[in-house]
């Protein structure tokens, strides 16, 4: 164990910090801070340009192997990048579903043709991706997939419905978990398809949320088509591939997420100082607790990352989701309590639009629900880490 950064790591930090400072004070100054919690689509066009610029400058996918057009950056360099990116107030990434989910999956399971076709455009923000896993009625029970694809000639023809699909309205491609074997059940007979979004068989309908905005969508597949060879990992292996995709979701992006949490907490602390609630002993306790929780998350993520890199088995990875989700939800409540009566007043310039911390409050309610509710997370910890008996499935 050693908390010190190496001279090379410090040099890397200095490089990315100065690069970000240059461009985010320069031509991209107007997009700083965009894309926070519940503000996913803010300044969309400008942010796409920024991400394309990142790609052209070689900063889009630093963790990818050089063979795929990345920098082959070490884990610690990725950590440093994520921290500096957030510290600089650079905008939330619109490409992360492609970069962090689609790409690693294609690298691990895709054909050479798939890699050549998709990876460069993901890196350079020329094609955006969305994820087609969740279905209405399936919730946390991902194996209960009903969307079907059948072969017709050299194409798959898809029927079904996905839900909670972020960015679907802006995406060029969707990676889709669907049932390709008629009559199969649970984990079997599923395949992982890559499907172009711009076609008549696909209908995207935004889901309006409690904030008044719509960041998720329902996606209806009614005779949608994709080429036969756009199955990743082989027909019938969809479950295995999708599970791998979900594991990619964790990892370095956790650090980026925490860096965003850092910005949120700093904003709340600044507010508490400004409105004098920071002098209230009870608010002080809660702010200190929030700060402690954020630090512990960071240490836990560092532990997960360095253990993973060294191949050490340990259990801390199991706790990340429930810990951050519960912490973040609590942070939203704390923000409202610090705002006091002001918390009730939303933007007076729009019909119904939340301020940033109100978005945090409302939107963080979904954190303990999506990607496995807190209840499901506790089951996973008990059953997989503590080896306690599984919940029986119903009939």
């Amino acid at each position, binding site marked *: 164990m050693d908390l010190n950064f190496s001279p090379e790591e410090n040099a890397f930090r200095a490089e990315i910090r100065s690069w970000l400072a240059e461009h985010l004070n320069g031509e991209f100054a107007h997009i700083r801070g965009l894309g926070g919690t519940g503000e996913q689509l803010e300044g969309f066009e400008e942010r796409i340009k920024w991400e394309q610029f990142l790609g052209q400058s070689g900063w889009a996918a630093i963790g990818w192997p050089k063979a795929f057009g990345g920098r082959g950056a070490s884990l610690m360099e990725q950590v440093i990048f994520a921290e500096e990116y957030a510290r600089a107030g650079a905008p939330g990434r619109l490409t992360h579903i492609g970069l962090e989910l689609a790409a690693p999956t294609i690298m691990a399971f895709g054909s050479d043709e798939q890699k050549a076709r998709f990876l460069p455009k993901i890196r350079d923000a020329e094609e955006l991706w969305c994820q087609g896993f*969740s279905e209405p*009625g399936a*919730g*946390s*029970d991902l194996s*209960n997939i009903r969307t079907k694809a059948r072969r017709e000639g050299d194409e798959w023809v898809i029927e079904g419905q996905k*839900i*909670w699909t972020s960015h679907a309205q802006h995406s060029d491609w969707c990676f889709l978990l669907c049932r390709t074997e008629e009559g199969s059940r649970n984990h079997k007979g599923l395949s992982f398809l890559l499907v172009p979004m711009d076609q008549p068989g696909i209908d995207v309908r935004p*889901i*309006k*949320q*409690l904030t*008044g905005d719509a960041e998720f969508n329902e996606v209806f597949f009614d005779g949608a088509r994709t080429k036969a060879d756009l199955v990743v990992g082989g027909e019938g292996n969809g479950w295995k591939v999708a599970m791998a995709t979900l594991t990619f979701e964790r990892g370095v992006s956790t650090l980026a997420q925490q860096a965003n949490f850092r910005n949120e907490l700093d904003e709340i602390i600044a507010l508490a100082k400004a409105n004098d609630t920071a002098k209230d002993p*009870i608010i002080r306790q809660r702010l200190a607790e929030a700060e402690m929780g954020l630090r512990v998350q960071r240490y836990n993520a560092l532990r997960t990352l360095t253990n993973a890199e060294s191949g050490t088995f340990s259990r801390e990875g199991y706790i990340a989701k429930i810990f951050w989700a519960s912490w973040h939800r609590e942070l939203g409540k704390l923000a*409202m*309590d610090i705002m*006091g*009566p002001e*918390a*009730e*007043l*939303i*933007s*007076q310039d*729009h*019909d*119904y639009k*939340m301020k940033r911390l*109100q978005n945090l*409050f*409302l939107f963080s*309610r*979904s954190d*303990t*629900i*999506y990607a496995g*509710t*807190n*209840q499901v997370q*506790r089951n996973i910890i008990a059953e997989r880490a503590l080896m306690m008996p599984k*919940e029986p*499935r*119903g*009939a």
Partner: protein
Amino acid sequence: MNFTFSEEQNLIRETARGFLEEISPSTAVRQWMESDKGYDDGIWQQLAEDMGWAALAIPEDYDGLGLGYVELAIIMEECGYRLTGSPLFATICQAAQALIHGGTEAQKQAHLPAIAAGQTTATLAFGNGGSFGLDDITLSYREEGDGFMLNGTAGQVIDGASADLIITVARKEGSADESGVRLFVLPRETTGLSATTLKTMDQTRRLTRLEFANVTVGSDTSLEGGWDCFLKTCRIASIMLAAEQLGVSRWCLDAAVTYAMDRMQFGRAIGSFQAIKHKCADMMVRVESGISGLYYAACVIDADTDELAEASPIAKATLCSDAMKNAAECLQIHGGIGITWEADVHLYFKRARAGESQLGAPAWHREQMALAMDL
């Protein structure tokens, strides 16, 4: 001593429940949310005239029904359960209380019968929508000839733009203690008094910023009661807000149980999982303990004793924070559906949030309790 609802009280609840179920489905609530006033005039006339709810807790001497606060709490709880938009809270639970407990005989005669008849709506303007300590009063007055001149801004006044009458609470300029507090009753349409409707997270109740710029009123607008009247009014209003929040809490329990029994996951109704069952059990503990705490507090108002200084913070702190917890659990149990606009959960979640801080957050009321306990 008897802690059971009388037959008449049960009848009032049953009637209210049936009526509100009919006129206040969530489709109607969503329409009122989009409206200017936050409620429908026709429905209000039905509540006030046909149902008699405006007259319920007004003394018979002023054309009211002279029923008690338990009856009023029942109505407020049921309105909370349906999120029914109406001027009941601001008019009856705030303004009318100030008149009843601090108005001059002339003021009572002038206003209470019209309030009881549902012809006049009213509200209370004193501060920023939160706690009601002396320093929370943001308006000031000075004596000016035979009358008074009012200045300042009151934020988050409930129904402040639509109410016919405003009860204004103000401190004498330069005064340092409670003796400088005066209440005034004045028409909403008064020179120098302007209202701005505020956009709020909870859309089921309309909040307003009222600005008083050299508002001149006559001496007959000043109520007899001062600080004590203000405190009593806010304590009663806190209990009635808690009653609404009990309705919110109870709806969240009912909705969570219904959804959990309906929703299948892993081949089972999620309501068969112990984690969900235990969440629902805890929600019921909050509802039932809330009923006990609330109706005791309502009885205390009826009994008109000093215990109000304790019963009110108990009801406000526990019921409002429990409503927030129940709304949060209800949303959690609903899963992804719970965060959609389409599902009704968020309406209750936002109302619970608003009610938690209105008239003082739980921590403030706990501190009031600590003071009452002589800590």
